[in-house]
């Protein structure tokens, strides 16, 4: 199975609070397994709920999941997105 072609270079960390986006792919193959396990998979739609100042972790809400997911900026950089808002 191949990963979806990287069509653009926008990652989760480019988004602002309240923005909605969908995941299109990943920057490298070295993305932690947890990313996939948490359901951050291509096609998934999510909203940025909050980001802490000084490049702190980002909190996102995946559509249909009442639990939020927190990730560091370094992980957010690895996940490519397409903005929907």
């Amino acid at each position, binding site marked *: 199975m191949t990963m979806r072609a990287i069509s653009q270079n926008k990652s989760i960390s480019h988004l602002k609070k309240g923005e909605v986006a969908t995941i299109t792919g990943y920057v490298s*193959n070295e993305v932690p397994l947890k990313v996939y396990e948490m*359901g951050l998979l291509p096609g998934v739609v999510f909203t940025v709920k909050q980001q802490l100042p000084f490049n702190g*972790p980002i909190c996102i809400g995946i559509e249909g999941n009442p639990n939020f997911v*927190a990730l560091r900026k370094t992980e957010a950089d690895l996940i490519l997105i397409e903005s929907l808002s």
Partner: protein
Amino acid sequence: MTELKIALVGNPNVGKSTLFNKLTGLRQKAGNYPGVTIEKKTGNFTHQGIKYHLIDLPGAYGIHPSSVDEEVVYQVLVDETNPNHPDLVVVVGDPFNLKRAVLLYQQIREMGLPAIFVANMLDEAERAGVAIDVGKLEKALSTKVILTDARSNKGIEALKDALQFEPTTYTASFPIPDEYSSAIQQVKERTGERNDYLAWLYLSQKHNRHLDPAVSAEISTIREAHHINYHRLQVQETMARHTMLDTHFTNVVKDPAKKRENFTERLDKLLIHSFWGYIIFFALLLLIFQAIYSWSGPFMDAIDSAFAWLAASASGWFPPGPINGLLTDGIIAGIGGIVIFIPQIAMLFIFISLMEESGYMSRVVYLMDRWLKPFGLSGKSAVPLMSGAACAIPAVMSARTIENDKERLITILVTPFMTCSARLPIYIVIIGLVIPQDRFLGLELQGLVLFGMYALGVLAALGSAWVLKQLMKTNYKSFLIMEMPTYKYPVIRNVLLNVWDKTMGFVVGAGKIILAISVILWVLGSFGVSERFNNAEELVRVENPGISDEAFDNEVQSQKLEYSLLGTLGRFIEPAIEPLGYDWKMGIGLIASFAAREVFVSTMATVYSLGGTDDELTIRERMASEINPNTGRPSYNFASGISLLLFYAFAMQCMSTIAIVRKETNSWRWTVIQLAFMTGFAYFAALLAYQFLK
């Protein structure tokens, strides 16, 4: 009666422990898995004439482990010789994230294990309008599916009934990619394994601890020969399964997916706010410390007087002599020294369990991650560091959720710098002796110094973490990806069971050591080999003619101590501690409190021939009037007092912590490095302070 072993497996935050507590009630105990200190919870119950032994495995998102915690799940399930290997697996999921739990279920079935499926948190799902088609799900999983709500007791009986279910054969839903077939074939030949998926798992794991090391090495060779990266296999499998679930699993869960501006979202606007979130967190910390110190006070006083009364009445049971002394000064005083910490430890765990149960703890991790990362720690280190303010032992154990090896090791190594409750009695006594009762900027000076000692602990922990970060190398990338579950009302039963487990763990674990040390101390202090010990009465009478009876008794006692085995030990280390401003009597305290810091005050009480710590004022008075025979100045002056405070702030004076660090790091090297670093640092800090201030 037949006994069946059942393993409870599931994603984190699906209410698995509530389910476990509902099934087993109070017939449960906490223990450790062989070789690792991952907390293992087991319990028993009987249903329809069958005895069930239930094992609660740590939460995991899939079979591939990314932390020590999750590795236990893999090991227990893959290794048929593991004593916890189950006869049936119960996979628990929640309706909102059913696919994730199904993924884990598929992996377990494909490993060849029989399993049934539970969707928990039914009430919350119903409120949100989420419905599960049980018939379809049972067909898709080819097993029994039970809907439960552990909080409201729904479905528990149905689940018990279902434990006798024997699932039919299962067809693999993950076709192993053809490109790996020759590697899989080789693994199967070497291991004798017939199951393709198990061979795939062996190939995709970094560690296969249950296999013979030679076989494990051969698997690594196969991997290298085929240029296989185990991480990539794990990712490939997880993504393939998710994709398949997305296509084949559409009609099982009905989710209106309406916009849910829920309670959690509203609460989080405040609790993880980039300013108010921190204010609330620190206010909560302040409340916890306040509670630990003031609310537990009356309980501690009551325990203290109960043991004083017990010792007093026990001294009447036997005639004066060695047995009487062993019972009252050794055993009862020793047990009292353990029990006295129960209120503080229980109080801390009430708060920690409430924070975990409600879902707030993951917010703490989220808030603190940015500020702990520069020190080589993770947001998840916040929990061990906070718990370290009560006791390093449970704190070190709580570091096991940290995925990254380096961050976990650093957390374990620096947590003992945090000011634990055992340091508190020493701080209070010494500060009371050497810091004047003045006010500074309207605040009590003594209180400020005490606060300063806490700040010093945090600084030492963060500072040494930073140093370790520079020195240590790691092959693993540090990451933080964490689920922040919706807020829930804590289940009081879960909180109480957890507090009970943790408190009893302390009482039994640390208690054994404190009790042993008390008895050893008593023996060393009560026997001696020299003439001055064995003939003390006669020699004192000759050297002090006309001495009063009371003074005579005191003199005999202190001379006996000086020439007892314990006194000899104290005088032996005196040259090393003299530059720190201590005399041989304080040396005894230092040696004795190597076992546990809290022993210091009671030892000093014994040493200054007071016989007990019941009356704090008299110990203080006695300590205040004690003269250091080397300098001719009070033993507890400003310089030696500060030196002593610094020594106890930094030194690893706790055998139980050493034991737990050895267990958790599985390395004597790191344990010894930590001990040497902490005690060496403490020695030099105390030396500098005394030499500057004297």
